[in-house]
């Protein structure tokens, strides 16, 4: 608990400065609303925000699950086949050089305004970090383990499942933790481009109507959602990461 106290104090301090700036300068509320106003708006619009949060959270969770499955499968395939490495790896790196955000409109065109274009966006963003982290772990198995397995006449398949995969789980855990932070960004980008629900849509809508306080309320909710997701993922992958 004491770990959180400094962070809490720093946050309160930042909020106080924010409020002080707004009160002293008398900025119009559509330029910069103060934290008190944002809090008030958040409370008044809580059901609206909750509804949109639920949509975004669902997109993120489905995206995380699909991205994790795809990433793990790709890493396993790459690790167990030299041909796959030669053929796919350069392509995988190249896709990372493309601005994934630019794909959002075309995803909306292909998959529609609903849930799946946002899920696809989240998957696109987290797929590479998960694949890269797990693959890296699979390729860095301590040589001594592999020597030992060889003297025990283990098949490559057995080595993969009994040694390389368990030895790579801490790296997979890092990849998943990173993905938990990235996935909401993907979903929100998808919502910006074309949606009728979700926090990204709500932010855009509020901004367009000069309801800056609502925009801030939605944005902070998104931040809290991301942090909670990250903490939940941290907890869920504790054993995997080899932590106590």
């Amino acid at each position: 608990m004491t770990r959180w106290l400094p962070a809490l104090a720093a946050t309160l301090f930042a909020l106080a400065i924010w409020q002080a700036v707004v009160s002293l300068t008398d900025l119009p509320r559509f330029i910069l609303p103060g934290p008190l106003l944002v809090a008030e708006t958040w409370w008044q619009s809580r059901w609206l925000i909750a509804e949109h949060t639920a949509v975004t959270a669902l997109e993120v969770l489905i995206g995380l699950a699909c991205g994790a499955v795809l990433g793990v499968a790709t890493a396993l395939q790459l690790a167990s086949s030299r041909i796959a490495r030669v053929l796919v790896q350069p392509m995988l790196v190249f896709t990372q050089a493309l601005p994934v955000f630019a794909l959002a409109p075309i995803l909306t065109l292909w998959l529609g305004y609903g849930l799946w274009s946002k899920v696809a966006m989240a998957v696109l963003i987290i797929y590479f970090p998960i694949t890269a982290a797990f693959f890296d772990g699979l390729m860095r198995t301590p040589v001594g383990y592999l020597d030992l397995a060889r003297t025990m006449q283990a098949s490559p398949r057995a080595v993969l499942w009994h040694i390389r995969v368990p030895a790579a789980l801490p790296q997979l855990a890092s990849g998943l933790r990173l993905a938990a932070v990235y996935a909401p960004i993907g979903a929100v980008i998808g919502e910006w481009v074309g949606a009728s629900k979700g926090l990204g849509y709500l932010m855009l809508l509020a901004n367009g109507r000069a309801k800056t306080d609502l925009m801030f309320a939605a944005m902070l909710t998104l931040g809290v959602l991301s942090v909670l997701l990250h903490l939940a993922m941290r907890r869920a992958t504790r054993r995997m990461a080899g932590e106590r």
Partner: protein
Amino acid sequence: MTPAPAITVAGSASIDGVSLFAPLVLTLEAAQWTCLLGGSGVGKSTVLRLIAGLETGADFSGTITASDSSPVAARVAYMAQDDLLFPWASVAQNVALGARLRGEQVDLARLDDLLRRVRLTDHAAKRPAELSGGQRQRVALARTLMEDKPVVLLDEPFSALDARTRADMQELAAELLAGRTVLLVTHDPAEAARLGHSIQVMTAGGLTAVAPPTEEMPRAVDDAATLECQAVLLRMLREGGQ
């Protein structure tokens, strides 16, 4: 276990055209301990890895043969300086690794017996991280024995242990590996003098056989002949290193 064969390594090795060791002939007598003693970088681990069929990074030209003419690499068990225990698996799972890797049924009676013989029965369910260095190396010894191979290759397995634990481990290994053809690669003259039925000193000049003390191994650490042998070996190492 099938009867322990004698193993003969004959040949030379080079790395990128530079000679690692000149042509040599090393014979591991059947069911005996052969200690291969040498400083760092003379290629003694390479010899062991060649017998084990492991990657060495060197080009070996020569032969590795068993006295019964059967292939060698499939009949060896291997133990290294690093205990190579899997941190995610329990002690018992680590000991039973070979069977799991080959998809075979684990011989539980044998597992229990080996854990008892290395005095780790009470620790069977623990993770390696909960054990001391000596206990971890006893798990590695049990895993080596669990393989029940006639040839056992030991690559400096005791060198990371403290003096007392090392002496204990040497005696335990001597007791438990009796009847197998053992190659012990070591840089410790005292270890070679205690454990070798035959002792070969490996230097840049090649192999030199040294007569071990007449007493049966494992010899007492304070045995006069053993200490004298240790001194002879150390002198050879220092002269060979010039």
